[in-house]
């Protein structure tokens, strides 16, 4: 199981490299923010542990905090990224810049 997961880990790393190597500068900040939202996946860790193994009050308190943190990371991250990207299209009509790039 561990070795299979390790293989997935390595491949995912290469996917990460490949996807990012071609990004215009303009999108560096939104991309950072978007990847930031994606590591909110830690929320799943909180959900799994609280659902399957947690016992005792301290465990539960810690995990509720972890779930809250993970949720903030996910919702906040995606919303902020969306707002940032919204700055690109503050004009109602499609911009010439985009048309030219076609």
């Amino acid at each position: 199981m561990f070795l299979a997961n390790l293989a997935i880990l390595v491949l995912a790393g290469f996917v990460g490299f490949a996807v990012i190597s071609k990004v215009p500068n303009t999108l560096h900040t939104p991309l950072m923010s978007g990847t930031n939202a994606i590591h909110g996946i830690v929320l799943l860790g909180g959900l799994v542990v609280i659902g399957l193994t947690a016992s005792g009050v301290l465990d539960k308190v810690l995990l509720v905090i972890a779930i809250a943190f993970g949720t903030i990371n996910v919702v906040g991250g995606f919303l902020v990224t969306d707002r940032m990207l919204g700055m690109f299209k503050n004009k109602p009509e499609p911009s010439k810049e985009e048309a030219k790039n076609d």
Partner: protein
Amino acid sequence: MTDLVHVLYIIAFGLFIYGLMGLTGPRTAVRGNLIAAVGMAIAIIATLLTPGESNWLLIVLGVVIGVLVGVPAARRVKMTAMPQMVALFNGVGGGAVALIAWVEFRDSHAYTSQPAYVAVTSLFAAIVGSVSFWGSLVAFGKLQEILPGRPISLGKPLQQLVNLALLVVAVVLAVIIGFGADSQLLIIGVLVFAAVLGLLVVLPIGGADMPVVISLLNAFTGLSAAATGLALNNTAMIVAGMIVGASGSILTNLMAKAMNRSIPAIVAGGFGGGSLAADAGGPTDKTVRQTSAADAAIQMAYANQVVIVPGYGMAVAQAQHAVKDMARLLEQRGVEVKYAIHPVAGRMPGHMNVLLAEADVPYEQLKEMDDINGEFARTDVALVIGANDVTNPAARSNPGSPIHGMPILNVDEARSIIVLKRSMNPGFAGIENELYYDSKTSMLFGDAKSSVAQVTEELKIL
């Protein structure tokens, strides 16, 4: 885990990758973000479908708290405060990882009931997550100006020794746990030493290097999420975490390179904030023409059209209000004033628009690159305020230049150019700007805000 959960996880991380690909292009970015968000929703639902899932009330409690805090924070934050908000969201992700590692330790009696890899990955996650959480909090505090933005340091060699010692202690404690010592104090020790390390690493880093640091911490949190995924046998976490770890590392490297800095130099810290005001570039045989505030004022006062080209320098100096005041005086004299906004000006898309809007500059005066480029030829004065690479004619003319092909503002077509700049330091991309050596160009050195204020004073007495 059932097959259904596995399949949903595969769909989820497929969507993450597809969404990220979308985020790398301007036209697909909004959709890409949405697709990634859908992937996240699927991953969360799949996890809740895991057989044996319980403690629903607590799950709802945690999620509700998270939504109540996260949504308003993301909605209300001003565009100028965006970087610290990203730092904060990154930090809580790291915090979640550290907390999960702690609970794992408690549940598995110091991992003794688990295979060795669980101990290794969990402890790695505990250290990195804790560093990321506290480091991000410091980054947030500095950008929010709760903490002073200038570097706070014990002095360079000492600081690095202390940091190294903290890391060594945290790792040694983790190794002791790995050999089966079951003591609550040990894991708390690991988390605390990593926390102090996170604080001390980020504290000495100055304001200008902050985006790079946030990106680095972002990559760290991704790696720690992947490690947690390994410990919990959760493929969605492994894939998503590792993609963020890899892409975050590249992004960090790109950002650091673009600022002419190396990541070790930034992390070693202590002089980060000074990078903007550093010594005046290397020796050059070309000469630049210097001008005074008075001359610049006269030049603009008798122009028909002035185009202001703002850049990161204006943002750093918080000069937008001063610029607006100057523009108003020029307009009273019948000068037409426009602002040329390059899509990459500043360190954030829309950075300039937001700052100028804050200073109540009318929206119609803000011209996008394609609208203004044709106008430079009939512009008397182009006033470049802390913008550099986006005005470099080498992008058009010199195929050997690293920025060749990047669309730029054709500032060099204006009849005369005044550049406000701190020093002759190369810009974000670390490339010399031929514009400064153009015979039509004159340079006004100094902080953008005070330079503009001086020009304004000169305009008043003209």
